[in-house]
């Protein structure tokens, strides 16, 4: 059992590109759910249109990379407006249903054989990220013992954490303002906000667009860091992992989703490599009649789920959440 290896694998993942993707997606969900109370169960859909916005523009339409970036932001904006118009006037549940369904429809359309010419079918699209790769200033990767990244990953990690920091700054600036106060009030009781002369629909739409664009940014970053856009990367469980990260870190806190994403990936890959080691070799720590090495890769999800349950029981506000905000329930 090599604990140094387990720890360094976990830390590398926790600070790596995957955690950044979830951090960005969870920042968006924090704006939706944490601050405004909008139940968006289709963040994977926003991610997908962000990623495909870039890939289709560059690969299929043959337009420059810069135009692709603009499309990667325009597509989630458009999706938010399309989803928001029919559902934001209704109760919160309708948005949840509409978003989860839309995310699935998008994934299936992007992967369909009929649309293969536009979206590349189940193999997805590649060959749009050379501009991004060429910008890489590093000549080689790093191996500090506790974290190790390849040259490509090091570039993605740099870009990614800058994006996360900018995102946190935007959320901080917005949420301390009266605008943020209106959002938090809508989360509590939208009729009260309406009775005070605020256009609740407009605020919910703004929140949906902003959070959706963070989802799109997460998808765009995922597309850039792995140089391919594949429909199976945008399945519904991505949305729920992002929610897990958000609740773990603490909703309605600026750094909540970021810390949550780091912890989520630390646990997931740490447990993965622990059980991987414990079930492999000639004389494994865990005998094969309990668990073999193919099962071990799934056990980490069971343990993560269990940890999440314990967290919700003993610390429902998450790591950063304010206990008082949870303890009081006026309704």
């Amino acid at each position, binding site marked *: 059992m090599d604990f140094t290896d387990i720890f360094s694998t976990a830390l590398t993942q926790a600070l790596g590109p995957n955690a950044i993707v979830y951090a960005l997606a969870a920042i968006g969900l924090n704006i939706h759910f944490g601050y405004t109370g909008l139940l968006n169960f289709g963040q994977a859909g926003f991610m997908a249109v962000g990623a495909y916005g870039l890939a289709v523009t560059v690969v299929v339409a043959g337009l420059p990379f810069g135009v692709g970036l603009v499309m990667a932001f325009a597509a989630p904006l458009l999706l938010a407006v399309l989803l928001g118009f029919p559902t934001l006037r209704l109760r919160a549940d309708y948005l949840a249903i509409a978003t989860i369904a839309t995310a699935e429809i998008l994934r299936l359309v992007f992967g369909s054989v009929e649309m293969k010419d536009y979206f590349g079918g189940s193999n997805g699209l590649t060959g749009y990220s050379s501009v991004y790769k060429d910008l890489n200033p590093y000549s080689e990767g790093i191996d500090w013992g506790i974290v190790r990244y390849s040259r490509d990953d090091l570039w993605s990690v740099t870009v990614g954490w800058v994006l996360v920091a900018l995102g946190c700054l*935007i959320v901080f*600036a*917005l949420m*301390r*303002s*009266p*605008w*943020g*106060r*209106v959002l*938090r*009030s809508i*989360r*509590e*009781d939208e*009729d*009260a*906000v*309406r*009775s*005070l*002369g*605020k*256009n*609740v629909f407009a605020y919910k739409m*703004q929140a949906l667009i902003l959070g959706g664009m963070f989802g799109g940014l997460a998808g765009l970053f995922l597309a850039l860091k792995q140089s391919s856009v594949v429909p199976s990367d945008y399945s519904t469980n991505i949305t729920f992992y992002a929610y897990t990260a958000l609740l773990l870190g603490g909703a309605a806190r600026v750094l909540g989703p970021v810390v949550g994403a780091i912890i989520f990936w630390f646990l997931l890959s740490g447990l993965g490599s622990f059980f991987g080691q414990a079930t492999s070799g000639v004389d494994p720590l865990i005998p094969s009649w309990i668990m073999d090495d193919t099962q071990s890769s799934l056990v980490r999800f069971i343990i993560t789920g269990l940890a999440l349950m314990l967290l919700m029981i003993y610390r429902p506000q998450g790591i950063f959440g304010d206990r*008082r*905000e949870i303890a*009081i*329930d*006026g*309704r």
Partner: protein
Amino acid sequence: MDADSTGRAGLAGVPTDPGARKPDPLIVGDNISRAFGGLKAVDVEHLEIQRGVITALIGPNGAGKTTLFNLLTGFDTPDTGDWSFNGKPLSGVAAYKVARRGMVRTFQLTKVLSKLTVIENMRLGATGQRGERFWSAPFKSLWSSQEDEITRRADELLVRFKLDAKREDFAGSLSGGQRKLLEMARALMVDPELIMLDEPMAGVNPALKQSLLGHVQSLRDEGRTVLFVEHDMDMVRHISDWVIVMAQGQIVAEGTPASVMADQRVIDAYLGAHHDTDLSEMDEEAIMEEAMAEIEGTKE
């Protein structure tokens, strides 16, 4: 318009018929109706609310008082009807626009924002905030001076409503009566011309009731118009200048508190024969006899 037709003085010559015309009306409504399934919750032929006075809306449960409130404030859409506020048509206008025009309501079940502090609840009430616009929100210098001004006004109101000690507490930790006060104070942050209170006395203890009565009267004294729904006849008797009685969705009587409470139809429909008597002072035997007679009556 001469001074005699405005405010309370103007009510002197108003006939006590349902839908009576007022000399200086703030709200004028016609044929307002709203049905839920087969039930006509509101069916008001004509309604006028005098400016600058306290008008009470009373009636039995299910009479359509709250539904009428919801319709007038844009929280519900009527099947038919038109009404105007300050001479401008207001039917079909969205709730938030109604509030911006100066017509603000409170709710029967208070809607304080539990997970915001008392002072944040108050700040939310102010209208025309630069910091509430998306593009100026991230830049504190654009809205901080206005925020200070809003906070100053909010603090003044909190002192007036004796909530200043609770300034930094979460609104969810307030008692029922304090929530009513906070909701009223928050509504004043909008600086409304008409304030509509839905059962302001429900669940409020007797000591606080006295101060609430004072607050409602002070609203009128500073020139606002007050319309409230209430079951507490003490409040209606003491502070209202005009009373409108609803039953089964219609206005059945109107008048001064004294004339309405003497109206036999109102007593039959709503108040009950003993509404003026203190139950503890009544002859207990008489009550028992009456009750026994009723029980006998139902057996037959």
